[in-house]
């Protein structure tokens, strides 16, 4: 009887999860998706908790209360910190899967070795490797995104890095195979602990050679790993809800990672093992080139005379928290009957969809947020392209310079606009460590300074001239 009830509960929860993701296909129904997902999770918790074998209720209540105590503040972080929060939650998900897998193994080893069939052992080991690797990998990613002092921002590389990683992974798999073949051998629990340690180490090694510009892809891949570790847990516990939910999460991470890779014209392996984003050596014989600077007054005048303005936001907008000032600028321009669109590159920012969320926060209607592929044909008609803290995603070297590391990456064609104003914090190259051709074009003027201040100045100019 109880079995039927809990299975029915799990089935309903699985269906709710699928609906939750289905409703995410448009912002209109998306919030319904959150409620469906929440309901599914609540049902799953209740039917599991109601199992007669579950007797330590105080422990469960304490853990859940602690989870709420940490979870609620984590849901209130500023939106610019969302990439870090997401990475951190992947770490928590990985930890949960790893710990449950560890508990299952040591428990069955002591009390019910018959449970440890070869199939379950393979799943169990996959669960702990993915879980613990996701834990440390995501912590490293979160540290990089939060710019924690002792986590290196730039990619860390050393000789034979990939060989060492591969060797380490090989050793881990060999040990894993030894455990799977003889799960009840006297040495197996020790090997199991060694595999855990190696997985933890591997997570760190996997992330240190990865630069900031690749974070959107890496976060998506870690998302996928966290999902797959839940699938593996489902195989161990023979629980179809875990398998379904984990598979949904795994495929979501995979699709996002593929979209990110395509948007950078790079392969998975290149992202993971390419150590992209080291500062390149300055090309020999390169002549000294000069930027043309412009004052906010001049830029404001150009904006006023435009009839079609495209704003191209990048990570710099997030860093400067400039989205609200951007909104004021948007309002000023709209008031004058100027068409304003935002061109969103899939990898702008530090996670998929990062720019959309920031601009939505600033109350900019999502109907004015346009994807790269849709805005590019309109770029030649654009009077002013305003680049706000974006760099690599508007670098024309991606189209023309075969030696450039970003060659082949689809970009927003800012250089085709009639004029370009680029707001940039400093004269340093972007996260990919490459000089940007766009800034030296004769149609480009630079506005150096913090994005928030510069746009604030533009707004002031426009508001002032509107008074006359």
């Amino acid at each position, binding site marked *: 009887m109880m079995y039927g009830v809990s299975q029915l509960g799990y089935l309903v929860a*699985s269906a709710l*999860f*699928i609906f939750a*993701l289905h409703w*995410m296909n*448009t*912002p209109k129904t998306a919030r319904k*998706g*959150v409620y469906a997902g*929440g309901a599914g*999770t609540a049902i*799953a*918790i209740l039917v*599991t908790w109601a*199992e007669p*074998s579950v*007797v*330590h*209720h105080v*422990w*469960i209540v304490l*853990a859940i209360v602690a*989870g*709420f105590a940490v*979870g609620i503040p*984590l*849901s*209130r*972080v500023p939106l610019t910190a969302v990439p870090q*929060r*997401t990475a951190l*939650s992947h770490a*928590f998900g990985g*930890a*949960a*899967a790893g*710990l449950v897998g560890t*508990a299952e193994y040591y428990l069955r080893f002591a009390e019910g070795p018959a449970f440890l069939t070869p*199939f379950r052992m393979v799943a169990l080991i996959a669960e702990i490797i993915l879980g613990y690797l996701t834990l440390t990998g995501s912590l490293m990613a979160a540290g990089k995104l939060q710019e924690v002092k002792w986590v290196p921002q730039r990619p860390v590389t050393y000789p034979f890095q990939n060989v060492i990683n591969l060797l380490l992974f090989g050793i881990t798999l060999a040990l894993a195979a030894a455990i799977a073949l003889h799960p009840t051998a006297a040495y197996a629990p020790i090997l199991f602990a060694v595999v855990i340690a190696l997985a933890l180490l591997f997570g760190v090694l996997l992330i240190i050679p990865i630069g900031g510009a690749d974070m959107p892809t890496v976060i998506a891949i870690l998302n996928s790993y966290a999902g797959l570790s839940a699938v593996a847990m489902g*195989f161990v516990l023979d629980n179809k*809800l*875990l*398998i*379904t*939910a984990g*598979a*949904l*999460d795994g*495929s*979501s*991470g*995979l699709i996002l990672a593929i979209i990110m890779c395509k948007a950078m014209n790079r392969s998975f392996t290149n992202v993971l093992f390419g150590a992209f984003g080291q500062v390149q050596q300055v090309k020999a014989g390169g002549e000294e080139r000069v930027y043309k600077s412009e004052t906010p007054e001049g830029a404001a005048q150009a904006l006023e005379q435009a009839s079609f303005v495209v704003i191209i936001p990048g990570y710099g907008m997030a860093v400067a928290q400039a989205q609200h000032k951007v909104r004021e600028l948007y309002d000023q321009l709209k008031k004058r009957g100027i068409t304003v669109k935002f061109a969103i590159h*899939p990898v702008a920012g530090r996670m*998929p*969809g990062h720019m959309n*969320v920031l601009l*939505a926060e600033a*109350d900019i*209607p*999502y109907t004015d947020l346009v994807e790269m592929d849709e805005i590019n044909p309109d770029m030649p008609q654009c009077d002013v392209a305003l680049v706000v803290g974006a760099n690599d995603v508007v670098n024309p070297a991606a189209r023309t310079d075969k030696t450039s590391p970003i060659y082949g990456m689809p970009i927003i064609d800012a250089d085709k606009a009639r004029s370009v104003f680029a707001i940039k914090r400093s004269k340093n190259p972007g996260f990919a460590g490459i000089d940007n051709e766009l800034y030296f074009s004769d149609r480009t003027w630079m506005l150096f300074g913090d994005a928030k201040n510069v746009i604030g100045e533009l707004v002031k100019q426009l508001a002032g001239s509107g008074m006359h």
Partner: protein
Amino acid sequence: MDYWPTIYVFVLASFIGLGVIRRVSRLLHTPLMSLTNAISAIAVVGAILVAGVDYPLRIRVLGVIALFASTTNIVSGFLITDRMLKMFKTDSKHEGQPS
């Protein structure tokens, strides 16, 4: 144990996942990620079974930590997804004050 049914479920669920996720609006990729994160915290089921059943103490401690981690993900994941989705509006001027 007959493990084939579970493998079936995995393969079919992956196809559903690929089909459904591909249709998700690109605008919503950040909320999508926090939502799938909250959903995959369904590992909470495994954590409850380890933390709550009368197993040796050291085993249950692992379960309690896992339960804490999953609950954190569930709570923060769903709340922040909803918080972000609330912000997506077609044209704020024609709507009421943002809630």
